[in-house]
């Protein structure tokens, strides 16, 4: 529409001479630029916030990881990759990585199957189903700090609820020092994590189960499939997208675990329950070795990023089809 009057506005010897094709191309370019400008204008406030409060601090942490820096003033003591070499010789940090792996494996092998079993159970018709669902989901709503304080009291050696209860029912042998014993602290921690998070995964699975069409299980029933076969060959494959998301959330959660550990054990006894985030906090906010703490956070970020990318690329690929913006199908 602009092409009709644009040439007229131009003055000079070549006025009106350019071929119409080039003219149209130019106006299209102009329109596209205008669109782009409008879009940018609308995005700018969010973009500025995102850059200033998310992206820049992240980049700054990456920068600070190459300095010996106490957190005040600007970093000036450049030490190259020393923080990183120190990190991978640090027994505590290597222990963090190991404990992270242990938690991930335990979550995948015990916590999620348990949540799935509960979900299948509560998907049946039964009296008080809603009450059970609510009860199992309730711990997830509780804040991590409150959960930590609560279980710190429950698992207090001797005086705590756990030891008292076990004593009353004649199972003193099962009691112990829970969080206070280096050999049981991780198991206790995992128990609390499971108590807190299985309800969330159960809810995810329940939602997934609702979406499994009844006709399919009925058809399988008519074909003579037993309950296990129906679950294994009909329900489970259809639940796969939910499972994949739940695994993803669980792994990322284990990598970033902080609050629960900080409140219950602060990483102790003697670092036996320390996680990467706890180590980072210790160095950043207790020792004021912010450069070193930044290096830890960079490695944590790296691990999360690599896991997220690999997982999305190879596992979530089908689920995310169409949900994310890709370069394909972008038009010309």
């Amino acid at each position, binding site marked *: 529409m602009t092409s009709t009057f644009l040439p007229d506005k131009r003055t000079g010897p070549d006025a009106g001479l350019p071929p119409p094709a080039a003219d149209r191309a130019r106006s299209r370019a102009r329109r596209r630029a205008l669109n782009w400008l409008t879009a940018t204008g609308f995005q700018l406030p969010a973009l500025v916030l*995102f850059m200033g409060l998310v992206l820049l601090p992240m980049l700054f942490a990456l920068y600070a990881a190459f300095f010996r820096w106490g957190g005040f003033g600007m970093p000036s003591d450049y030490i190259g990759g020393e923080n990183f070499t120190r990190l991978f010789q640090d027994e505590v940090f290597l222990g963090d990585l190991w404990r992270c792996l242990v938690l991930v494996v335990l979550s995948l092998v015990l916590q999620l199957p348990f949540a799935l079993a509960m979900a299948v159970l509560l998907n049946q018709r039964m009296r008080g189903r809603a009450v059970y669902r609510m009860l199992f989901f309730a711990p997830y709503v509780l804040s991590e700090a409150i959960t930590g304080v609560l279980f710190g009291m429950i698992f207090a050696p001797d005086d*705590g609820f756990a030891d008292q209860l076990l004593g009353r029912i004649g199972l003193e042998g099962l009691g112990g020092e829970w969080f206070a014993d280096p050999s049981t602290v991780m198991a206790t921690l995992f128990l609390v994590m499971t108590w807190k998070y299985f309800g969330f995964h159960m809810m995810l699975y329940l939602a997934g189960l609702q979406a499994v069409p009844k006709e399919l299980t009925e058809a399988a029933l008519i074909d003579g499939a037993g309950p296990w076969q129906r679950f294994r060959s009909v329900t489970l494959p259809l639940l796969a997208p939910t499972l994949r998301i739940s695994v993803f959330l669980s792994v990322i959660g284990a990598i970033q675990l902080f609050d629960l550990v900080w409140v219950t054990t602060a990483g102790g*006894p003697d670092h036996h329950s320390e996680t990467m985030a706890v180590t980072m906090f210790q160095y950043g906010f207790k*020792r004021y070795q912010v450069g070193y703490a930044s290096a830890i956070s960079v490695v944590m970020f790296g691990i999360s990023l690599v896991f997220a990318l690999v997982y999305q690329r190879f596992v979530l690929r089908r689920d995310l089809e169409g949900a994310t913006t890709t370069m394909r199908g972008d038009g010309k």
Partner: protein
Amino acid sequence: MGDPALSRRGFLAASAAAGLGTTALTACGGDSDGGSSGTTTIEWWNISTTEPAKSVWAALARKFEAQNPKVKIKIVQQENDAYKSKMTALTSSGKLPDIFHTWGGGVLKQQVDAGLVEDLTDSTKPWGDALLPVAREPYLFDDKVYGIPFDIGMIGFWYNKALFEKAGISAPPTTWTGFLDAVRKLKSADVTPLALAGKEKWPGMYYWAYLAMRTAGADALQKAYDDKDFTGAPFVEAGEHLDELVGLQPFQKGFLGAAYSTPTGQAAAVGNGKAAMELMGQWAPVVQADAGKGLGKDLGFFPFPAVEGGKGAITEVFGGGGGHALRRGAPQAAVDFLKFFASEATDLELVKKTGVLPVVPAAESAIADPNIKAVQEQLKKTTGFQLYLDQAYAPAVGQEVNDSVAALIAGSKSPGQVAQSITRTAKEEQ
């Protein structure tokens, strides 16, 4: 638009930024102006955010204003940890408040070295020199005075007299061998000898620090920090002595996970009569009664025993208190206020109402509690002094001491390894 995840994150980020912004803004409030009509306003930064100290201090400021009509006192109060980080920021910006709270030691020394703190040596003569010598210690550098104390305290053993009697211990031990004997007696009488908050690490550090003072002498900890070398034989020996104690399994069940002031923690274990002793500062009786039942008349205090053959004496004290320093160039009114705050009348009031230990010798009469009196007796006899390590050392070194000693107590580090890790961290800093 319409991405709820993004906008939520943006909101969180924005609120975080708002928090930071407030800090930045309030951080600029370190100035004082000589107001109009000849009135001087002085800013007084302190950490007395809890009652009764909060209102007692405010009333004292009003009293000073009444006596000095041309001076206005503006009180700025911060909670302990917030104050520490605020002061670190202010120190690097080079602007300190007129009167500010200080624990002395390394942090104050840093501020002095940066030329930010007023030298009070001459302006506080003679009243400043008359204060309790051990209380003045943390604020003296090269015989110059950089701060005036209002409180002083020390770490020592708090014990249950009834449980000691039950175990057949007639008098508190004065030597390390005697102490280990007492621990053995308590154990055989089926009493848990010691309560320890293993989760918090710092209470365990007290044992190592005191043992190092007893084996290497009172000045050794500061010297080792300055030389960045903790590998000397007396430091390893200190660890070995602690190892001897740990070998007797003297601590309460689950001590590695215990906190200090919670209902199942160290103080409660002693306060409820479940453990016979704890190594803690002069605040211990209050926390014991708060977290547990409290021992009342059964509670006693004795200083950390001497180690046979060591360079240190039983009269050397590990402790610290609180004081005030002035920014360089602070008005004369600020010095006047320090004098007022360290006067006998003020100190009597502080001791009576806020439970601090007297820094003015004459104010001692105001102490009613026999346990606090016992601490005061020790403080008066002091022949050497080491300030709390978290004030004397850079944070990383202090934390490393806590961490390595905790590892020693948990059995994962040898005394030699403790000395080495502390040395390594000390060398990394600066």
